[in-house]
């Protein structure tokens, strides 16, 4: 009899103790970022609740039998979360995923910041779509790219994101100047500026005039093959060859032309170059 009562007592104690143990956690498989939800619990007594996520790690006391409220601030970062409840009987846990909410930001990469005119696939643009919590939006989203230049037709192209990214490349126009490149998705708009710069000098020509002890050399307005003026500051090399030797001046373009004053030294051949572009030759003092 004693043994029976002892065994019964043991069983009752075991049931009571089991009642104090936490049950398995029930969590949603996926939660959209920034949304609150509840985790029901069973049993009784005090327990510790742990929530480990990509950007947070919290711990607080909870009462078993009551639902654990997970606030919207706790689910902002997309990724995998581990929820764990520990009581005197041990710990139970479950994991769930938080996914991005709707598009709110674009990270827009445009290259280069300067590009020569009339070049194929010169401008590349890549857009990553993020939600308001800076989570990558993995659902396909339409992104529209536009390139506009003053006095030139606008170019537009729509792409759909894959794994949160969309990209495109396009040719630079024949006209130099500041091109505005934009990426938009719904109400979100990002702008960048690409400077389309002239290419190498084309049809580089000089004139030479003897004035007293000097020869004044001046280029025609320096332009590239598309007619765009080569920017001021670009170096032009002017070379004079006589039987007494050679004289060179590396002079920058100012107001569209490059000038140099060379010493008068009898019959001279004067030539011009800029970068790898070579211009005409002028003979001074002999037949031109």
């Amino acid at each position, binding site marked *: 009899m004693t043994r029976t009562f002892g065994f019964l007592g043991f069983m009752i104690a075991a049931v009571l103790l089991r009642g104090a143990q936490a049950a398995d956690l029930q969590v949603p498989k996926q939660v959209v970022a920034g949304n609150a939800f509840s985790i029901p619990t069973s049993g009784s007594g005090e327990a510790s609740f742990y929530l480990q996520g990509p950007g947070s790690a919290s711990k607080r006391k909870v009462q078993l039998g009551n639902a654990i409220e997970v606030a919207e601030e706790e689910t902002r970062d997309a990724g995998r979360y581990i929820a764990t409840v520990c009581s005197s009987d041990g710990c139970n846990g479950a994991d769930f995923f938080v996914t991005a909410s709707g598009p709110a930001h*674009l*990270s*827009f*990469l*445009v*290259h*280069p*910041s*300067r590009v020569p005119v009339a070049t194929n696939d010169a401008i590349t643009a890549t857009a*990553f779509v993020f939600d308001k919590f800076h989570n990558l939006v993995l659902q396909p989203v339409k992104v529209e790219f536009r390139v506009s230049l003053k006095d030139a037709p606008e170019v537009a192209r729509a792409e759909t994101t894959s794994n949160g990214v969309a990209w495109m490349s396009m040719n630079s126009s024949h006209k130099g100047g500041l091109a505005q490149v934009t990426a938009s998705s719904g109400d979100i708009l*990002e702008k*960048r*500026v690409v*400077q389309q*710069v*002239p290419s*190498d*000098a084309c049809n580089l020509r000089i004139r030479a005039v003897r004035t007293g002890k000097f020869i004044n050399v001046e280029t025609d307005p320096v332009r590239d093959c598309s007619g765009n003026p*080569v*920017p*001021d*500051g*670009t*170096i*032009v*090399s002017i070379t004079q060859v006589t039987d*007494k*030797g*050679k*004289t*060179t*001046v*590396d*002079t*920058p373009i*100012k107001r569209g032309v490059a000038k*140099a*004053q*060379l*010493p008068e030294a009898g019959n001279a051949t004067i030539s011009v170059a*800029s*970068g*790898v572009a070579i211009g005409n030759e002028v003979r001074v003092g002999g037949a031109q």
Partner: protein
Amino acid sequence: MKTLLGLGIIIITLVLVGLQWVNSGGLTQHEIRSAGNPTEAIEALMQDVQAKNWDRAYARLANTNDIEKPAFIRDLAGSYGSLRTYSSLDSFDVWPLRATADQAKLRVNMHWSTAIGPIDDVRDLNVEQKGGNWKVDWPVPKFNDVPPQVVPVNYLRWDIINRGPEDVWGEQNVDSPQVKIISMNPVERPDRLIILGEIENEDTVPAYVNVNATLLDQNQNPLSQEGSFDKISHTLLPKQVSPYRIDFPGVKLSQVKSVRMDSKAMLIPASADPVIEVAGQQIASDPLGKRILKGQLINQSGQVVNIAQALAAFYDANGKVIWVSDGYVDQALLPQTPVSFAVDLPDDVAKRVQNSHITVNHYSVNNNS
């Protein structure tokens, strides 16, 4: 007692007279009188220049009526923050050219130790005997005075505004300049392998460039890596081309399977001023018989260029870069004042040279660009 007193007075008098003799330059005179032949006269002068004892050096000149001491000192010690002002005479070689009983002509090669390495200065000096002493006829230096004037500066200047330190991904920034190595040629010399060529700033903004080369052996393993150091014009304005030269001492061409070139460029603030004309370029021989490309640098701006370096690229008949050499000018370039320069050219290379181009590197204290 009286004898001692008398002896003491005599000794004191002699000491005082001796001191007075030294103070009046008697010792100097004595030492000068000891230049017994033309070579000794020049050697003594050079030793005084080495010691920067200008008073004593000036006293060794025969033509002090023609040349003032400040001009003599300026000729040797430099001025206007030129390279010579950061130099000292390390050693010298003297050898006679011709001599008579009381006149001689000698050649002196002064080896100057400068902030950027050794520079030689070769001069032919006349020496004459006067009153038993040999004295040096120093060539009267000609310093051009720059007339006072206003020189407007309206060349282009570039300033850079970069993105701040906050990392906002995707935010626009200015790209580094586009530069391109437009030629690369290996040249084997008896004691080294040299990689030389040209690099161009293809962009519309100024660039600070550097070129490195890595030699790879037959198994594509790195054999040696070097940079162009100062054998390049580091600051390149838009469309400017600079030669470069990279030396690999002790390496043979047969050891090398391939070369990996690496050019780095970054945006820098710069100015298109000063413009420096390179006039009268011609290949000649220097007084020591070495082949050189010489000419004159003329600073067309209104500011002083303290230190200038001429960087020369030499081309063969096919337009290929076959040699690159450089020479620092140890005089400052005053505005509109021609200053001579020369760069070395090996004899065997000189025979194949069809064309050349000089680029001028410059440094001005008042302008950091």
